């Protein structure tokens, strides 16, 4: 059955697309014929992309690896110290704290995004008036430049005039302004809120798309067997969207751990270096202190962690399929 439909489809499109162009082609010259060979053409077409990546990504990467092995201050030639930067970093409490902080921040943000994303997707999966309209609006936080929305949140978190405090004060729920960015705990929570606000739409939309291809028969079968909503969710919904859920969790984890914009805008790593993540610490080390080698080394220490996450996930996925 599938075969017949396909062939028919092919002919239809062929007639529509191909007909006007069918007549125009002169015979091939020698160069063109050479180009036709898959080996040559294949490389040729991949070449621009590959070249760009090699020159503007591969080479800088190698250069940077070299730089991390230098004790290099700004405006001077560095001296080779091998793994000295890395060893020194492990000894620095700021760095160790940055690692812990990044992990805590990533974990809670991603978990929150999964939960809110799943809930949002379930809610939006129902049929109701103007559904597309709402679905459109829910994506807004994700597409707006994160620096600009982080600035809005910074304004909302302002210790004196932040709107959340002002509203709660006016209603009488609290007596004094909430100090959002005062200490590690509150600052990290505030950052997580913004990160979750920004990242949840991606989860919602992806999960929503996944929900929409779950076969309805399975739900009907489960219902006949007497399963309630929660049980249906566990045994029908989840297994079907597991694949997508894992992929977007992977992406979410990578993106969250490497977040720069939100943290840079809200706290710049403070107070007292307590909310640094890898990227902000690297930036500060290179561009405020002036130690270029050490700064790049901080960035590079993210790779092992990234690899572990990516390959662990991919390995499990390959095992399951």
């Amino acid at each position: 059955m599938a075969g017949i439909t396909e062939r028919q489809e092919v002919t239809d499109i062929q007639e529509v697309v191909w007909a006007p162009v069918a007549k125009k082609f002169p015979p091939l010259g020698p160069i063109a014929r050479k180009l036709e060979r898959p080996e040559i053409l294949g490389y040729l077409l991949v070449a621009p992309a590959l070249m760009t990546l090699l020159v503007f990504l591969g080479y800088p990467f190698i250069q940077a690896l070299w730089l991390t092995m230098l004790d290099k201050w700004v405006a001077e030639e560095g001296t080779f110290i091998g793994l000295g930067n890395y060893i020194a970093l492990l000894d620095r409490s700021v760095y160790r704290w940055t690692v812990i902080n990044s992990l805590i921040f990533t974990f809670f943000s991603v978990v929150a995004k999964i939960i809110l994303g799943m809930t949002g997707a379930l809610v939006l999966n129902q049929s109701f008036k103007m559904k597309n309209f709402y679905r459109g609006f829910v994506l807004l936080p994700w597409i707006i430049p994160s620096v600009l929305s982080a600035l809005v949140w910074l304004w909302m978190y302002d210790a004196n005039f932040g709107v959340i405090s002002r509203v709660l004060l006016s209603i009488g729920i609290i007596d004094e302004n909430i100090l959002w960015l005062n200490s590690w705990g509150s600052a990290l929570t505030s950052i997580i809120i913004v990160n979750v606000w920004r990242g949840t739409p991606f989860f919602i939309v992806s999960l929503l798309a996944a929900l929409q291809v779950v076969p309805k028969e399975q739900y009907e079968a489960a219902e006949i067997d007497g399963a309630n909503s929660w049980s249906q969710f566990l045994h029908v919904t989840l297994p079907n969207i597991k694949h997508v859920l894992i992929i977007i969790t992977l992406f979410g984890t990578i993106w969250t751990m490497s977040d720069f914009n939100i943290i840079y805008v809200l706290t710049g790593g403070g107070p007292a270096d307590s909310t640094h993540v890898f990227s902000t610490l690297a930036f500060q080390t290179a561009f405020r202190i002036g130690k270029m080698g050490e700064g790049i080394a901080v960035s590079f220490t993210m790779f092992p962690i990234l690899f572990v996450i990516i390959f662990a996930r991919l390995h499990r996925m390959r095992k399951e399929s």
Partner: protein
Amino acid sequence: MSASLPVGSAGPARWNITITQRNKLHKIFYLYVPLTFFMCFALFPFVWMGISSFMPDEYMYDADIPPWAFDELTLEHYVDLLFETEFLYWVWNSLFIGITATAISVTFGALAGYSLARLRFPGASSLGMGIIVTYLVPVSVLFLPLAYVFFKWGLGDSRLALILAYPTHLIPFSTWFMLGYFKNIPAALEESAMIDGCTRLQSLWHVTLPLALPGVLAASIFSFTFSWNEFIYALTFISDDELKTIPVGVHGLTVVGDVYFWGRLMAASLMGSLPIAIIYAFLSEYFVKGLSEGALKQ
């Protein structure tokens, strides 16, 4: 059809209410309440952004009055923004860099994606894997290495630096995306075209590309959005006020002297978000498609 939260019509009635009333309660509890929550959570910052941008300073910086108690609006922040800062330069830079980087990335990515989807040649699959794995490496890990090399090549403080840097992140994505897209277009079409005498490239141009246009559009929207929103590369590479992109320029407006200019900042945030919001409003289908296809394809 609410596939995930079925209203258990087969179950026993637990309260003395009719089925319609029960459905209505269900709807309120499972739909309207969470929907309201999500909408408020998602949109409140934008609402406040808009309000603040029109609020006169006296009301904005008076902590004693509730934030809704203002009775005059002002355009001074917008005027200030447009005429006393380089905001318009930033808009132009963002547009220019965004369009150029997108054009380069999607073109190269489409070519590479097509090649990997259709052509067999040695090393194809590892090349493909290599290019795509690059996408997983976050931008904020690479910004210092790139900065160092670009500075050495004399590209510091230029738009060219960004135009060359953004494709390093966008090409892997475009390649991956177009690869998946091309795979969904039956190869038979091109083959019948080639039987009729045209070259592969010609068939790509005349047959495949027109069909792949929605995918190209989706990849372009995604790429442009990335360029428009990108911050850390732009922050690192560009210092000259007239060459900045919107995120960097606006962030630089945060503190002047010893004070914040919140009204101006909110106006800038609003205006900086508007183009993307407009693109999205008209092309949201493609956007969502790109999003979910990017996530769902492996």
